[in-house]
């Protein structure tokens, strides 16, 4: 009896998570798949016709927005690494007694809702606003230069909004790095650069790996940044799904696009995990 209980314990402990995922993920996903194959409209109702043709239809109609979203997602992720890694590094190794304070400072802007943060960018980056105005006045920027309503604004907006998801996992890993390992590298005549490249960086890769997942997935599927900061040709696939759903009430179309996007992201993540996966990272650590 006790043995049985011991064996069952981990499963029982995992049960709430399974129930949660079952109700809020598996059931809706099946509903979504089912919905995507229906035809009809909101007035006459939707009937199940197993209309698989919807998939090639939505891909050929929206491949441009899908590719653009993935491109924006990749750019925002790279930008997050470029900005977030040094920040995490500095806090982990040079933060001293105030590490928690610095982390709080990183998170502080995110206590405000994403929409308000994004909208405040519109104010800051207005063509003649507090940032661009003076730069134009002293001739550093041409008179008609703008940041808002451009691709740049969308990508930077995405990177800004998801930055903590890059900083925190990298910080968590760097924080665990044993300083004696780094010192050992120095003792073996490694330069600061070599110590970083051969010791610290490999040890931090699991954090980067997690950060990339946490930033890339939500930023590829985002719609707020494109609609608030974007211009005429910056529509992301999230915006398309949103308007198919709410404006057109084309539930099957919206469901099909969601599925396509999800499949692409899953395939992408698995290949990424395989290429750069945690296992290899672990090997590096062990080796």
């Amino acid at each position: 009896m006790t043995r049985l209980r011991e064996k069952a314990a981990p499963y029982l402990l995992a049960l709430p998570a399974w129930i949660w995922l079952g109700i809020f993920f598996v059931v809706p996903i099946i509903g979504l798949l089912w919905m995507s194959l229906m035809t009809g409209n909101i007035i006459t109702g939707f009937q199940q016709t197993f209309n698989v043709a919807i998939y090639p239809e939505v891909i050929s109609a929206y491949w441009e927005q899908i590719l653009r979203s993935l491109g924006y997602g990749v750019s925002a992720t790279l930008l997050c690494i470029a900005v977030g890694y040094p920040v995490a590094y500095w806090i982990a190794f040079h933060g001293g007694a105030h590490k928690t304070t610095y982390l709080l400072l990183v998170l502080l802007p995110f206590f405000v809702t994403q929409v308000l943060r994004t909208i405040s960018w519109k104010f800051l980056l207005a063509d003649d606003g507090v940032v661009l105005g003076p730069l134009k006045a002293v001739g550093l920027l041409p008179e008609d230069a703008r940041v808002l309503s451009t691709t740049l604004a969308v990508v930077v907006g995405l990177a800004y909004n998801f930055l903590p998801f890059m900083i925190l996992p990298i910080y968590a890993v760097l924080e665990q790095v044993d300083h004696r390992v780094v010192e050992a590298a120095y003792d073996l005549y490694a330069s600061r650069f070599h110590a970083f490249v051969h010791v610290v960086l490999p040890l931090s890769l699991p954090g980067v790996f997690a950060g990339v997942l946490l930033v890339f997935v939500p930023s590829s599927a985002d719609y707020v940044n494109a609609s608030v900061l974007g211009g005429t040709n910056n529509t992301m696939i999230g915006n398309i799904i949103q308007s198919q759903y709410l404006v057109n009430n084309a539930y099957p179309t919206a469901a099909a696009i969601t599925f396509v996007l999800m499949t692409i992201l899953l395939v992408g993540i698995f290949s990424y995990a395989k290429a750069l996966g945690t296992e290899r990272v672990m090997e590096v650590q062990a080796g």
Partner: protein
Amino acid sequence: MSKNRPPAPALLRGLTRARYSRRDTFRLAGLSAAALALAGCGVEGQGQSHSDMTEYWEGRKSNGKVRFANWPLYMDPEKPELKRFTEQTGIEVEYHESIQDMPSWFGEIQPLLANGDDIGADLMVISNGQELTKLMALGYLAPLNREYLGNFTEFADEYHTMSAYDYGNKYTVPYASGITGIAYNPERTGREITSVKDLWDPAFKGRVGMMADPQEIANFGMFYKGISPDDSGVDDWKAAAEALKKQRDDGIVRAYYEQDYIQPLVNGDIWLTMAWSGDIYQVNAEEGSNLKFVIPEEGGTLWTDNMTIPITAQNPVDAIMLMDFLYAPDIAASLTEYINYICPVPHAKEVLLDRASELSGEEKEELEGLANSPLVFPSDSDYARLHNYKVLDVEAGEDKEFNSIFQAITQA
């Protein structure tokens, strides 16, 4: 206007709400409602026939309370009109500012109405447009009994009783209307704007704002091509889309906006833009800006937010009584003083002028300005230049074709 009145209802409304959208903030709520509908696969269309009016109202009585769902900032927070209603009739009003934009409100109530469930409101304000058309086609709105609508019959002007979307007011009576025209900053444009063609002028490259709403942008594309939207067809839409595509690809359009065009216009990011009348009236009043609003020579559009009764209302008699109460000229005047959009009751103008004559100084001037504003009480010649939205046949799926043509422009 009294000094203790909150400063700028239409401006605040512009900043916080957006008639059609507010998508940025509230889309999440709408999406989750729609997702729930999906999860339950509760999206069977009804397509039921309109229930018979007399049958609906037979045996129904006032219950002494009514629940009113409205847009934010569409009534003085003190609710003086509702207090007077309660004084006169004894009916208590529960007022909720629960409507943020049409698509997500529709997404929220549609599954409930489809199941015949109460939506928590007996009276709701719905903009004319695709959602209203769908609600009517689905049989989700109670047919109105004219016997209760004495004030409306007596005081509403003909422009609000002969609408294209609900001719004869079978399901709707207007709450307030507005005009879609062009707003511009004369200092930036350097000249007066008079025509829709100005929105296509290469001189304003990258400085033009257009609306993202399919119906709004379609209207202006059609004006540009000399087509009247009211009775347009597929070929007209394609011609309009062609012109709008060129406008976009030539880099003239900076972005497609919901109601968020106001700030960029004030900041000077855009110099001229499609705009709603009430917004500009209030921005100027509050920010001291010098923006101008013009109904272009080709025409503008008249849109209307309507009071409707959901078919599952628990207190429909109280709801229709309140509906009619708001058409008494002094009540309508009081509403207009706060809302600043077009008032459907012409007599309210006299009430406001009477009230102004009892005041003096700045207050008198302000109130007179409001009463004489063509954007609040348009003249017949103003109305003559205004077009209605194309009413799309949602049962035939016309909206699908329409939306896909114009979303291909705004969502490229």
